[in-house]
């Protein structure tokens, strides 16, 4: 097997952080090479260096035997290294054809040759077994999985030999993940090398030939997948032992805090009824498009409700973020970067933001010492890893940003928390910390609405589970008496469970 990409002693430092420390790595041509690592291990930095977005401080790379030092991403793409980032880089207002040909539009004297463009696009889609995607569709209207295929098609048109994929399954459901895997296997057969960055160990074992582990900026392991186990990977990622066991759930208290009656929203969900008690964790799950995220958002006023009623502590509640805040109902949105945090503000201000009125003195002067104390308290409590309270949140790792997004609501003393996909795109180490946190909050009597696609997390954390299918409640299950297999049956709409009549 020949080596297509070779890294020798690559290092990169940022002020105060040594992000990559003497990394060496060989990637074999035509292999699927997985790269794993905990938050802040240096995965993002490595991807940026490979894709040409960042230059290393030291070290040397070779690609197909030649020195590889791309000045910017377009140079990397030109020599055959394409990167698909977690956040897609697509023209959402333009057609599939325009996106796939972007930057290399077939032309003569500046006039577009639309026929050739369409041919290229349809060929690329055909190679990916995705000819069903209409060439004239607007990309913004496509499903996430289809957008991803467009990204891969773009890479194919630019003749990529090495495709770097950063957490490609983060926003996909089970069946979409399976078809992505088929595509990746096909690409491998076509001699495209894949560098697959993921935190989902299951996928690595299903897909990869070789796996490399980054920890604290160092490459601690590179081995064929056949020679490692999930446990051994976790051990080398974290350097400590994590057991898969979840802490035991606390008993739910009697007092009802939130009740939803006959909630309907056009196109998203219908006839939703449930209630949640003090200290209860309620899990809402379903496929992408089942309405679970919309239902979560509707509770906080971020999605329109057509009819039905929500009661907060017995009183009718008309959802809106500001009323929710007054009612100590906090919300951690799905899209952390766009909605959960303010990237350009400090950790301190992000945490204190909803509490500022309480931290200020007439007529609105912020008492900075109080603000600092509050932020400090939450940073310690949640173990947020930041060099200082003044650090900009965009410089934190994904998992720590997620903690900041939660911390601001804990700082206001929220009693009910709505968490939408709280561990999406977060590595196992921090994931487990967030689980422990949810568990602890529940034990403090806080009620948590957990909207998630990850069944293991729902089962382990939630007292009761609602499964949505096509916008309707397909089943209501007890978290203690169900299994992933059972939920899956409801999730795909194969069977339906009527509401059980036993009283809690």
């Amino acid at each position, binding site marked *: 097997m020949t080596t297509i990409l070779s890294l020798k002693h690559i290092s990169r430092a940022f002020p105060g952080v040594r992000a990559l420390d003497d990394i060496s790595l060989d990637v074999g041509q035509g292999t699927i090479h997985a790269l794993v690592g905990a938050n802040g291990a240096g995965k993002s930095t490595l991807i940026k260096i490979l894709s040409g977005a960042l230059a290393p401080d030291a070290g040397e790379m070779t690609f197909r035997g030649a020195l590889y030092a791309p000045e910017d991403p377009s140079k990397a793409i030109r020599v055959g290294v394409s990167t698909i980032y977690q956040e897609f*880089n697509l*023209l*959402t*207002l*333009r057609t599939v054809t325009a996106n796939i040909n972007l930057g290399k539009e077939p032309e003569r004297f*500046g006039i*577009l040759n639309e026929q050739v463009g369409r041919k290229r696009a349809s060929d690329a889609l055909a190679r990916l077994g995705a000819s069903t995607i209409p060439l004239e569709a607007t990309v913004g209207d496509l499903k996430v999985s289809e957008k991803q295929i467009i990204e891969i098609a773009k890479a194919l048109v630019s003749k990529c030999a090495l495709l770097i994929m950063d957490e490609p399954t983060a926003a996909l459901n089970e069946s979409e993940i399976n078809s992505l895997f088929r595509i990746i296997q096909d690409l491998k057969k076509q001699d495209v090398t894949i560098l697959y960055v993921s935190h989902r160990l299951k996928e690595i074992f299903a897909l990869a030939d070789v796996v490399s582990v980054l920890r604290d900026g160092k490459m601690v392991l590179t081995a064929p997948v056949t020679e490692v186990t999930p446990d051994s990977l976790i051990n080398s990622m974290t350097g400590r032992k994590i057991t898969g066991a979840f802490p035991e759930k606390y008993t739910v208290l009697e007092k009802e805090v939130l009740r939803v009656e006959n909630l309907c929203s056009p196109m998203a969900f219908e006839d939703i009824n449930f209630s949640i008690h003090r200290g209860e964790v309620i899990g809402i799950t379903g496929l992408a498009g089942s309405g679970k995220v919309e239902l979560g958002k509707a509770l906080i006023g971020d999605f329109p409700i057509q009819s039905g009623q929500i009661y907060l502590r017995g009183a009718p509640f008309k959802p809106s973020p500001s009323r929710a805040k007054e009612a100590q109902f906090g919300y951690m949105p799905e899209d952390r970067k766009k909605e959960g945090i303010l990237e350009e503000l400090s950790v301190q201000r992000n945490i204190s933001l909803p509490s500022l009125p309480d931290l200020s003195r007439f007529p609105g002067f912020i008492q900075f010492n109080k603000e600092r104390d509050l932020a400090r308290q939450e940073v310690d409590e949640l173990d947020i890893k930041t060099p200082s309270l003044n650090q900009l949140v965009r410089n934190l790792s994904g998992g720590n940003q997620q903690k900041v997004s939660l911390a601001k609501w804990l700082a206001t003393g929220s009693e009910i928390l709505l968490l939408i996909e709280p561990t999406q795109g977060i590595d196992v180490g921090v994931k487990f910390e967030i689980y422990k946190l949810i568990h602890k909050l529940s034990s403090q009597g806080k009620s948590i609405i957990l909207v998630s696609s990850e069944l293991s997390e729902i089962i382990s954390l939630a007292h009761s589970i609602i499964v949505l299918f096509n916008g309707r409640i397909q089943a209501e299950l007890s978290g203690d008496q169900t299994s992933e297999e059972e939920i899956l049956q409801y999730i795909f709409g194969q069977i339906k469970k009527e509401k059980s009549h036993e009283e809690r």
Partner: protein
Amino acid sequence: MQSQKKNTRQKILEIIGENGFILIFILWIIFLSLTTTTFLKSQNVFTVLRQAAIVSIAAIGEMLVMLLGGMDVSIAALLGFSGIVGVSLMVNYGVPPLLAGLVCVLVGGLIGFINGILVTKVRINSVIATLGMMTVLNGVALAYTQGKTIVGPQLDTIAFLSRGYIGPIPIPVILMFIFYIIFYLVLNKTVFGARIYAIGNNEKASWLAGIKVDRLKILVFTVAGFLGGFGGLLQASRQGSATSSMGNEFLFPILTAVILGGISLSGGKGKIQNTLIAAIFLMTITNGMVLLGISLYVQGIVSGLILIIALSLDRLRYRKR
């Protein structure tokens, strides 16, 4: 092809549905043709189109910049400044009209180029950069003319540009349609056009795809400058003179035409034909009120209200989706 199956009526309904302002435009036309006897006379129609010519040609430039997600507020000042340069060359320096006209357009392009450099290389926000440029241009124009009107018999040679006819059709109207056809093709059939939309939609994705974003932006600002410069030439021809304030009246209609025509303020979205329709709409508002004999003092209120209604209808439709 699915689109060809639709009959014309459906197509027309679709176009109106997408662009609320066109509906108001049509209602306004119907209203005027019922209440006045002169509105639909060909002479009046050509008057409206002729008045629309300068605004709509400069609006192409503004539209290109706004498709990129920027805004050029210097376009009207640029138009006036180029006009002064052209007229002054002819009147004060005896430069042949053809050459002077060419310089007039080139000066516009040069100013546009500088705008482009400020926005891309110096990284100033386009509104701020062009606001500065506008102030400078207006200042220079005032200092140079000393507030006086530049006028001379040499200008008769360019009068045909705004007052001439080919057959029954005024030359500025022909020029207007030629420009719109050219830029329709540029935006829809060329790589340049495809990339303008691409950058306006997602600058980073375009950059990652190897597009030289800065170079293209500079080019767009330059083209906008050329168009503004040509507008200046037309205005000089129409006035038969040049004054320091000759561009001022254009800023509001140019921006309104582009925004009313549905160009997204965040870029990447919009059709050039709608800019033309919007520019003509604006002119029928003033024209119609004159025909209706509405007092000059009330005209501002009415035209403002019509615009607000047309824009609201657009946005409400958009929100419903």
